[in-house]
């Protein structure tokens, strides 16, 4: 039984691989696929790590933010690049909210004289 009183425990990140204990086949497929995704391909491993860092912020995953902050540094990214990646994520999130403003405006027009 877990004695944790917190929903987020940084030590849990080290246990991520243990998810296969409850469903081995799916877990294994996930980790194989995950490993393949982050290999250098048309995008460099550093570019993929910066994308992961940005996405980690939009999904607000503290485990992913810890993991990909370190990974970005290891792959040679610097603070400026990492913060730009977070701004890209924030801009899309902000834009995604604001673009609904058009819907709001359409509705206001429909409902107004």
């Amino acid at each position, binding site marked *: 039984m877990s004695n944790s009183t917190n929903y987020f425990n940084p030590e849990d990140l*080290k246990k991520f691989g243990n998810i296969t204990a409850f469903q081995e086949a799916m877990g294994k497929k996930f980790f194989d696929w995950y490993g393949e995704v982050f290999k250098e391909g048309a995008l460099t*491993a550093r570019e993929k790590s910066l994308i992961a860092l940005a996405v980690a912020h939009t999904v607000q995953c503290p485990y992913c933010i810890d993991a990909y902050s370190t*990974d970005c*540094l*290891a*792959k*040679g990214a*610097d*603070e400026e690049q990492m913060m730009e990646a977070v701004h890209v994520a924030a801009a899309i999130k902000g834009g995604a909210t604001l673009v609904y403003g058009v819907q709001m405006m359409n509705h206001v027009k429909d409902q107004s004289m």
Partner: protein
Amino acid sequence: MAIKQIGKSLKARENQLSNTFYQLQVLNGKEATESKFPSFTEKVKAIGLFPLKPSGIEIFQLNIGKLCNQTCAHCHVDAGPDRKEENMGKKELEQCLEIIAAVPSIHTVDITGGAPEMNPHFRWFVQECRKLNKKVIDRCNLTIIVANPKFNDLPQFLAEHKVEVVSSLPAISKLRTDSQRGDGVFEDSIKALQMLNEVGYGKDDSGLILNLVHNPQGAYLPGGQAELEAEFKRQLKRKFNIVFNNLFAITNLPISRFLEYLLASGNYESYMEKLLEAYNPSTVKSLMCRNTISVSWDGYLYDCDFNQMLDLKVATKSSNHISNFDIEQLNKRDIILNQHCYGCTAGAGSSCGGEIS
């Protein structure tokens, strides 16, 4: 511009980590931490390579002094401007030359420090090694080239003698470089690289090799060397019109001032865990201690520069100094292993020449 030093050496501060016995106690879980990590020696036994033996001495690496114009936060030598006493004298350098001349398997003389160029005998020693037709490597911190007018002609001197230059540039970021090496280091390093390029270093067909060293600026392991090299080449060319040959990604070993940083920042145990998780047994056969002998400023012999800084002399007591150098005995010696060796076997492995597998 003048470099603003991060601090003083452990020795000048009388920090207990300047005691190598204390460092070894920390690494073996007897001081400063309750965690004891699995023995590196046991790992080597498990793959049948214990005792680890040399493959033959090819590289003669000399640490000719701890004097340096920088006091980098991660320095495993504990070098700095305050280390004025530990510098190799001409008599010892002459003894080294006799060995280099007498042992045909030695093809490379690798000169490090401190800032080795600050040793008054540096240029003479380089010239003598080149007369013996040995490849010479200068592990240059770059900023020494612009630190004082008397060093401004180093690029010409090194080029004239076809010395391979291996230089530290941890990041293409002023913030990240200066936080590790001192304020002003990044700008001076860029100037020095441009001066090296001007005399032909790093340029195709010049025959003048300029390699850079990247090491992490904190408690993490380096990423893939090839990709880091591509990024360094792209950014240095784009921002500063600088070219170089190869990038060596080197892991920081948990000793000396980097160990101090790990303990002070609370990262020691997690860093050791990272090294252990990344342990790659396939790197052991290619570790640099198998083809290198490391010589200290006072002439003692070590399996590598890291063992030197932990004062772990070679196991051959009757041949542990340049005055009693015996190649046959040394080629049969058992290499001394300890917990810091995990730093050379993590991931793709790490050596003075970067990745090893």
